[in-house]
């Protein structure tokens, strides 16, 4: 039985998703909250869900801040962000904060369920808009790179940790996404399965999170005692 939690302040949306998930086989959805704070309080009493659907705009602490705290205290919890519209900037911020995926709220209930499954199977999805931001973040060059870019690239490599750099495979996937290839095309091209593509994407998100984490560690302490 997989436990799904929902943090969403719109009662109707929250209740609908909850009821729908609760009706699915192998899913339980009893932890629902309208803000991060009560959710955190509950987590500390060891009710750890497997996946959390979390809204970004919340009263009090916003979803991105909340996610940083949750991920640093309970790294095993997977979080999928819910967002009203396709704001790639905020989606990227939430990925940096540790999200395993994101969903537009008007996604159909069926698709919401499928996304949860993807995440539970260790995968994630990525759109070209996000892929381009990932490239910017890891300073990769999708096309030809000028001399200056190369220098910047090597300078940044020196500064960053080996574990948090993208592998060749991961770079290939991100660049493929920017070029508009579908998962299937990427999978075919690299002779790997669709699930492997999704697993690579999840890994990329993890690296994003690791790279943006230094500050979070200190904040997590704060979350408990601040």
């Amino acid at each position, binding site marked *: 039985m997989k436990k799904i939690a929902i943090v969403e302040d719109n009662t109707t949306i929250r209740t*609908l998703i909850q009821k*729908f998930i609760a009706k699915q086989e192998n899913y339980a959805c009893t932890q629902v909250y309208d803000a991060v704070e009560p959710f955190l309080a509950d987590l500390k009493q060891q009710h750890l869900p497997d996946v959390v659907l979390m809204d970004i705009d919340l009263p009090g602490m916003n979803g991105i801040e909340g996610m940083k705290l949750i991920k640093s205290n309970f790294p095993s919890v997977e979080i999928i962000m819910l967002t*009203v*519209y396709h704001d790639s*900037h905020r989606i990227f911020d939430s990925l940096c904060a540790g999200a395993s995926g994101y969903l537009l*709220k008007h996604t*159909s209930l069926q698709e919401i369920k499928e996304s949860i499954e993807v995440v539970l199977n260790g995968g994630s999805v990525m759109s070209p808009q996000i892929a381009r931001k990932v490239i910017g973040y890891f300073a990769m060059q999708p096309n030809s790179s000028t001399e200056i870019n190369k220098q910047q690239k090597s300078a940044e490599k020196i500064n960053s940790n080996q574990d948090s750099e993208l592998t060749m495979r991961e770079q290939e996937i991100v660049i493929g996404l920017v070029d508009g290839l*579908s998962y299937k095309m990427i999978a075919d091209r690299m002779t790997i399965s669709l699930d492997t593509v999704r697993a690579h994407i999840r890994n990329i998100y993890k690296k994003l999170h690791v790279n943006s984490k230094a500050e979070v560690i200190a904040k997590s302490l704060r979350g408990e005692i601040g």
Partner: protein
Amino acid sequence: MIKHRLFFYFAFTIGLVISAFGQTIPTKMISLDNGLSQSVVKAILQDNNGYLWFGTEYGLNKYDGKKNEAYYKHHGLSSNEITCLQKDAFGTLWIGTSKGLTLRLNDKFVIFEGTDSLLNAPVNTVAFAKDGSVWIGTEGDGIWIYNGDIFDRWNVDNGLSSDSVRSILFLENGAIWIGTRNGINIFNGSGFKIIQDKQGLTDNKVRSLLQIDNQTIWAGTRDGITEFKFDKPLYRVKAYRTTDNLPDNKITNLFLDDQQRVWVTTENGIAVWENNKFEAFGTQNGLEASYFYTTYEDFEGTIWLASYGSGAVQFLGEKFVNWTTDDGLSNSVVSSVFKDSKEKVWIGTYGGGIDLIAKSKKIKNISMKSGHLPDDKIYHIVESIDHKIWVGTRHGIVSLNENLTPANTETIQLLPKLKYRFLLQENDSNWWFATEDEGIFHLEKNQIKQFTVDNGLVSNSTRVLLKHTNGDLFIGTTNGLSILRKGEFLNFTLQNGLVNQVILDMIETDDGSVWFTHYQGISKISLDGQIEHIDFEFRGEPQASYLIREFNGYLWVGTNKGLVQIKLDEKNPHRKLYTSTMGLVNDELNKGSIYIDSENYFWLGTVNGLTRFKPKFIQDKKNRIPLYFEEIEVTGKTIESRKIIELPFKDNYFSISFAALSYIDASTMQYKYRLKGVDIGWQNTYQSKIRYAGLTEGEYEFQVKAIDNNGVESKQISQMIHVLPPFWRSSWFLFLMASIVLSIAYLVLNNIRISKMVETERIRVRIASDLHDDIGASLTEIALQADFIQAMTADEDSKVTLQELAEQSRKVVTTMDDIVWSIDARNDTLGDLTDRIQDYANKMASKKEIIVNYHFTGIQSEKKIHSDLRQNVYLICKEAINNTIKYAQADLISIDLIFENGLYSLLISDNGIGLENLTKKTGHGLKNIKERATRLGGKLSFESKNGLMIQVKGFHL
């Protein structure tokens, strides 16, 4: 009751854990890693331009706070081994080496010719007499005295007790003290008076002489310090050795700092003489080396030590002393710190119980294990009026006697085992407790009363309490502030004036107002409920503030970026920041974790250790920090500095970088700059590089000032920049005038137009996102409801209807999403557009298993394009994709955006049934495409051969 007895039992059987307790002196080392030529530093000096010079056994180094520039013999030094550094009244550097002297004149090295003998002599010391003469003490060659004209020499032949001279001291009364390897020689106008061990000198090998005041001279020797006191007709002699707390008897140098403290360097550690006693520091306190040659104090009051093997060491321990888990702390998170009336320091940690430091400097830990505490996570430690220590933990409160036995056990028993964040004693029998989740408790004469949201409290998650002198109780919670006034709660939240709702610490100031800290800085609430906020940003990020105290006319605020000191009575208060770079153990302080003791020491708990800090030590030096231009780049190329920089009209993109020479923490340096004629007023920044582009022809002056951490402004420096007019224009003066008038008019009009556009844009964005948020949420609800009923119902007809309902609602949300996207200025590049097209096409195509190919040729993804154009291209694509997917029965779509010869063209083609076979339904879609193509200014054409191809050609973006 049983539990209670058990508690007692443990307390007396297990005993206390006692371990050695060190402390760490923060230092910063400048050595090989920083480009120092060698790690044995023998001399340090700051020149009048602010640069620090480090003389090593191999090479001389000039340091600007970031990098060292090394100089050797081939640069003009008389030897690579530097022995001493001095500067004269004109600021000229005198560089003593193992082989003669070198001067630094006009940025060049000049060997001091002097005499043949001096050219080869190792120089030990250089001193400047009042009459302007230079005294050069050598090793084995006596003293050379140069008065600007002739050389004179003193050596054993004149009666000096040794030819090896280590130190020369000129006194007010005209006497000259000369320290040699064989005693001190005092010259009083006619002959030498020699002081040696027989006269009370601790050792004949004298290494340093220092005048401390009119009556006191110290001589540092190879066997301790000899003090000469002239308070009586006959001087008195006194010796200081390791028995007086010196770390070693082999003294290398004595140095008097700005605050009359004497710094003693020895062959095994250093000592500071203050308040008539030595405090010693060595490797056991974290010093990088044990052998030090000399001490130096720079313009900012920072103490530098010249070390054997570890380069130049910036000594920060005069202000900060640190403890971490390496020094014996039980846990790195210090959540509460407190010094009791018996001078015992209680360090509450979050996970390791409480560490105690008594005067013995031994650490003692009490914890759950030792039976003293109900939990090892401590929130708050206070001393009650009757001198019991009360501790709030994550699992109840405990009260302890001085000998650590439980006190007030019956009262404590009454209190539920909750998380106690804050304890406040109002009077003998009257306490208030703030709990994590259960509101506040009031204990009065062993009666307990709880207050929660049901009684009007703003939140049950309480964090901090303050008893105001007027009787009000202030309660800080994670959801705002409550004031309990005459039995009623007054509540303040985001809705009525707070900028952040998580209140972390509070203090009352003299005027009766209460300052409180929160995640976005600090705010003040006056007695009539007026709230003021101090904007708390450092380098553009808000500083979460965890603690606040008032001390000595300043507010002291602990943040996640260091400790901030703010002068209260200024209108735009300057904020001084103390960071880990300056010696704090960590930049992030903990909530309320501060105690200011009777000696004015600040004890500060951080997320990684404890710092003891004494602010009075930090002298607000009014020396002006030197400021320089570092580099000027024109269209990406560094150009040589010159008085006036002339830029061609065509490519006048330039950047200018500058640096203030600060050796404390360059990141706290602020700058003010303006380009006269362009910037209106001074611009504030932490950046040290400013860029300008597209300047119109004319003469500009770039001015910049630095403001150091003490709020002192540097001298202003400036650079002239002339942007040249195009040659064909300069000859026609009238034309030039006319064009200037026109361009000014244009600028003014343009400014008005732009500000209007910005305003309209802002309104547009706001309306669109409001619409989207409200209606979007409602439509989403409808869609999800339809989904839900659809999943629950069995009736096929209803299913179809419900699906249509859901789809329709989602379509509207998506359309609104498109609108919000297209007017969001952050999405203004071509890359954003192509991404969006791909996102949409992939999403639509994946449902029908259609393959989409993209060809973006010649597209610069960083190019900015106007929102209208962006929207038109996107909507053409969207319309075309929709048509194809719905009607064309294609399995391949190709979307091409091509930039060629300065023009764009868009091609969307599929392998479907083509235009002829399409039904009327698509007519509207094609009409839309036509309209949008016209708006783009492109030429639209359809071609229907093996599918449909839509082309929009020749438009600009």
